[in-house]
């Protein structure tokens, strides 16, 4: 071991550290570009008219994204109504019978469903609901989104419920409370914050989904709240307007993208607040 050898090693160490920090920062750069670019283009499009009025025909200036906003909300509500009960019950089943054969099959199915490409979910929505009904509908879109959201809810429900100490359940059962009431009134409330986090993350995930809606909700140029009719949604509007040749529409798509990014950002911040404030303390 000579003096120079040590020096070389320490120089190598510094060089490596610099490269790692540099490359990592370089990878973060596109994010700034994307967020900055979208907000720069989008903010100027957003005003009260933009979020409170429906789209105007091509050529007329003005108009807004109200139908897409309402459509997205309806789709998310349908998805949440369907996915929450099934997801939480299935999560409960896996956490209560964690070693059973059925549980491992459910876990496998959840993994498969989570890995299913969104466009395949779109095809499934088309064959299960659009084809039998004979037309595109908000309902089929909401169900397709529910399928995308389900794995997230099952997984977070299972993880949260498993963390709840067994003594809590024992105490309740020892008082003579029936098993199902123990689960409903002791275990579920204790895990509520975790489950809510899962639901919000799930909503953030489906709010921007486009592919499952292409062949189900389909999009609608007119204002509609009928869940049996085609309906517009923010991501569909962004897709349709972004790929159109009209500058006016591009502007509106930037505005819609900004709204969508802020919505998802707010959901992310909400989950952080929930996680920090209501962390299960045992």
């Amino acid at each position, binding site marked *: 071991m000579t003096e120079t050898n040590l020096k070389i090693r320490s120089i190598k160490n510094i060089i490596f550290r610099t490269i790692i920090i540099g490359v990592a920062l370089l990878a973060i750069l*596109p994010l700034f570009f994307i*967020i900055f670019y979208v907000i720069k283009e989008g903010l100027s499009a957003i005003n009260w008219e933009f979020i409170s009025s429906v789209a105007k025909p091509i050529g007329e200036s003005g108009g807004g994204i109200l139908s897409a906003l309402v459509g997205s909300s309806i789709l998310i509500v349908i998805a949440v109504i369907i996915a929450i009960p099934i997801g939480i*019950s*299935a999560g409960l089943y896996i956490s209560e019978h964690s070693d059973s054969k*059925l549980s491992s099959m459910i876990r496998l199915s959840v993994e498969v469903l989570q890995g*299913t490409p969104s466009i395949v979910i779109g*095809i499934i929505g088309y064959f299960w609901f659009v084809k039998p009904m004979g037309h595109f509908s908000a309902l089929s879109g909401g169900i397709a989104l529910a399928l995308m959201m389900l794995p997230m809810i099952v997984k977070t429900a299972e993880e949260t419920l498993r963390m709840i100490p067994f003594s809590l359940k024992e105490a309740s059962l020892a008082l003579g409370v029936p098993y199902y009431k123990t689960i409903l009134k002791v275990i579920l409330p204790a895990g509520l914050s975790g489950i809510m986090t899962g639901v919000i993350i799930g909503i953030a995930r489906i709010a921007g989904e*486009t592919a499952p809606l292409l062949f189900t909700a389909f999009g609608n140029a007119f204002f509609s709240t009928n869940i049996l009719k085609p309906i517009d949604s923010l991501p569909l509007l962004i897709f349709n307007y972004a790929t159109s040749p009209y500058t006016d529409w591009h502007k509106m798509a930037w505005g819609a993208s900004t709204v969508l990014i802020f919505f*998802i950002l707010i959901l992310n911040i909400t989950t952080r607040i929930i996680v920090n404030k209501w962390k299960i303390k045992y």
Partner: protein
Amino acid sequence: MELTLSNNNKITISSNSIKYSDNWKLGENIFNSVLTGSGIMIIMIVIGIFLTLILSSLPSIKQFGINFVTGTTWDPVFERFGALPFIAGTLITSFLALLISIPFSIAISILLGEYFKRGIFSGFIKSMTELLAGVPSVIFGFWGIFFLVPIVREFEKILGITAYGIGIFSSSIILAIMIIPFSASVGREVIELVPSDIKEAAYAMGATRYEVIKKIVLPYAKSGIFAGIILSLGRALGETMAVTMLIGNFNKMPTSIFAPANTMASVIANEFSESTFELYTSSLIEIGVLLFIVSTVINLIGKWVIKRMVVR
């Protein structure tokens, strides 16, 4: 309910409690069957997805057999459907994206898993990557059209090739940006799993941080980092919207990495709602079947490797 004893002392058991116990059993049964039912429903959904896809693609499977995956012509007018151009498009874009993303995601994993485990800087990078992971695919595509494509077009002009702008190269860059947060977060988790006693042993022998990372951390976390890359490959394969907006929708075999092409997901997104006859639809669904099977297998392998690593 009454029980009569011999000396006419009546013992009455309150019928209330019996009713209660009946209700209790009923509630218990309903509750258990709802839980089991929901679980079984998820299994049925997955089986149903698979069966629906297979059944709806039967006409095309029967018509073309193995030629479907080796055929290079996709021509709805003459009812000839070969999916090789899309399979090639998917594989090229995904692997190119993986190649671009690997150095960046490994750098972020090492940075967050080894250099800055906590603190403001690590929190900043972590929330940035999480935010990046939450941006919808359609917005990546939109940004790609207006920001990335012009840059790529200039680049292609410098190279002296046909300057499409859109095409495999642009799609791969967008895909790479989209999968970096994901593989980086898996990588960080497995790097944090490396036991500190073996790192400390190396430090005690006088190793520098670089040597510890190179000779201890990376070899130990190798399989987990690999699994993260596999999982992000699964994402890249199925990614639809951003690619659909940037790849150029060209149904021939790709000739170079700068040429427009089509991927399995993007051809479905583009042509499914205009497929006018059964064979056309079922051919598109057969592409969906292939996509479903490949992403499922890749996904399960990745998750299995990670699970094995965590258990160890």
